[in-house]
């Protein structure tokens, strides 16, 4: 194929990628977006494969065939595991970019040092730093989300951590600048390739050190930031290889990650630096000897009776619903309430769960129509008319302290106004007041009733009660 027809194929693939994302704007056309994406990918790969400098086709076929099965396996994970699958795929994306940058560098210093212009070196350095830090950072994020034993769930912090992290990153950039200033002279001394390897090691270390101090509640932001880095490393690869398809596709991914990070940060009223260096979600020092507040517990029977009388029920799902795998029981309850003519809506906070949109996917899996999934800003106006607000495994996103308590770490965060509902039912696993994290004032309001137990069991019992069968 001539150079022009290859470039033309790339151009068509680029247009298809843009259309693919455009169609994602509406659930009705979203699946078309996937097909456009697949078509673009096939076109891009086919055009590349047809390049005259591609010599040995078997060598390409073998790793592709080897990767198909793990790929299919990773696409079949339970939907509660989607956040860790996503983190893992950012890791693969970063790794691919890092490896390609490394390969190009060593090839060029060995054979064509004149190719190492300061510009190409800048792109290579950006590619390997971004690629390798995304690789280890995303692996740690995936490990935390999967709750792997030897990676602590809680933020892992020590004194001076920020300086160590920034120091590692600063040093990597500094050495990178030395390498790019050297340009073609990289081939003249063995010192430069050694420095190059040092940069790789620093980037690999910076990645995991960056994510270790970050706790579960911040994962939606971290995943989005890593998403953006993975995209930018693909852009850098495009600059290294002078490939515009890589540049556009990477830029689309990068801007998507950036937009999602901004949305997540706004939804927590925090800044990027605060997320990355703030070690949020640490166990807070218990407020000195605070008075023992009391929960009011409610029985399943009592709760079911109140639910039956309601006109509008708003369910606020959170990460606890995912952990307990309660979404299918929630759907049963939803059906039973609907059958009685009760309006049921779901209030979705942008940072509920462990990645952007996590709750929507789980509820869609349970076949709850998406017209009943309402964003925070759209539902808050209706909360005073809400008869019962049922909180399923959500915590910070309904904590009124975000509006009132200036000393609270979540002060200023936009929340779902659960406390404005006429009555609140909150499902909580244990009565233990020494709950790790932030005290939730919502639980101690006069109108709040606690339902203690596992979310799946409690919702299941409520459904049984409403179904008329009683508990036994």
């Amino acid at each position, binding site marked *: 194929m001539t150079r022009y027809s290859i470039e033309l194929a790339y151009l068509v*693939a*680029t247009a298809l*990628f*843009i259309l*693919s*994302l455009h169609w*994602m704007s509406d659930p*009705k056309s*979203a*699946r078309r977006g996937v097909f456009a*994406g697949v078509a673009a*990918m096939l076109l*891009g790969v086919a055009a590349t494969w047809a390049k005259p*400098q*591609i*010599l040995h*086709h078997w*060598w390409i076929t073998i790793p*592709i065939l080897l*990767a*198909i099965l793990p*790929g299919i396996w990773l*696409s079949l994970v339970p*939907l509660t595991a*989607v956040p860790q699958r996503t983190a893992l*795929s950012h890791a*693969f*994306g970063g790794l*691919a970019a890092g*490896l*390609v940058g490394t*390969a*190009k560098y*060593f*090839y060029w210093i060995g*054979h064509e040092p004149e190719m190492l212009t300061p510009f190409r070196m800048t792109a290579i350095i950006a590619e390997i730093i971004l690629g390798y830090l995304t690789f280890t950072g995303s692996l740690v994020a995936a490990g935390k989300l999967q709750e792997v034993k030897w990676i602590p769930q809680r933020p892992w912090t020590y004194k001076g951590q920020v300086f160590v992290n920034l120091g590692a990153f600063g040093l990597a950039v500094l050495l990178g600048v030395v390498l790019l200033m050297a340009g073609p002279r990289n081939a003249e001394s063995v010192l430069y390739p050694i420095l190059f390897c040092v940069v790789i090691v620093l980037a690999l270390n910076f990645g995991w050190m960056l994510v270790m101090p970050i706790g579960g509640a911040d994962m939606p932001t971290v995943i989005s930031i890593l*998403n953006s880095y993975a995209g930018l490393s693909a852009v850098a690869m495009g600059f290294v*290889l002078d*490939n*515009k*398809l890589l*540049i556009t596709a*990477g*830029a*689309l*991914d990068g*801007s*998507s990650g950036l*937009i*999602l990070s901004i949305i997540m940060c706004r939804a927590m009223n925090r800044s990027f630096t605060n997320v990355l260096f703030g070690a949020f979600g640490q166990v807070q020092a218990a407020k000195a000897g605070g008075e023992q507040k009391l929960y009011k517990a409610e029985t399943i029977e009592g709760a079911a009776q109140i639910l039956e009388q309601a006109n509008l029920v708003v369910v606020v799902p959170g990460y606890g619903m995912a952990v307990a795998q309660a979404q299918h029981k929630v759907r049963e309850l939803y059906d039973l309430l609907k059958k009685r003519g009760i309006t049921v809506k779901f209030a979705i906070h*942008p940072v509920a769960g462990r*990645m*952007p*949109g*996590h709750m*929507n*996917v789980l509820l*869609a899996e349970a076949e709850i*129509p998406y*017209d009943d999934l309402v964003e925070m800003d759209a539902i808050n106006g209706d909360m005073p008319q809400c008869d019962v607000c049922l909180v399923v495994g959500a915590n910070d996103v309904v904590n009124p302290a975000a509006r009132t308590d200036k000393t609270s770490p979540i002060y200023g965060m936009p929340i779902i106004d659960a406390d404005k509902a006429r009555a609140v039912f909150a499902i909580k696993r244990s009565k233990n007041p020494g709950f790790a994290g932030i005290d939730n004032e919502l639980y101690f309001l006069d109108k709040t009733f606690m339902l203690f137990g596992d979310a799946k069991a409690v919702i299941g019992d409520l459904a049984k009660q409403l179904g008329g069968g009683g508990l036994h």
Partner: protein
Amino acid sequence: MDALISSLYVFVLATFLGFEVIRRVSPLLHTPLMSLTNAISAISLVGSIVILGEQKSTLTMVLGALAVTASTINVVSGFLITDRMLKMFKTKQGGPA
């Protein structure tokens, strides 16, 4: 130098375009959006194929083969899981979206 400038143009324009297109995606679909953009940026497969297929040295081939494997896993799992999730989003009528 010309190649550099035109590449920078493409990068800047694609970033702005990405912003405009992705801002319009409903928060409802943010999870599938992320897995779709994952799959799209796995276009790094193209770069990996070039590195591997040129067969310039043993090192580039080994690194290239690893990169092709990592990218292909992302292509396959990214598109498949996006479609799997999108199939689940239904309206009240119960029919497919």
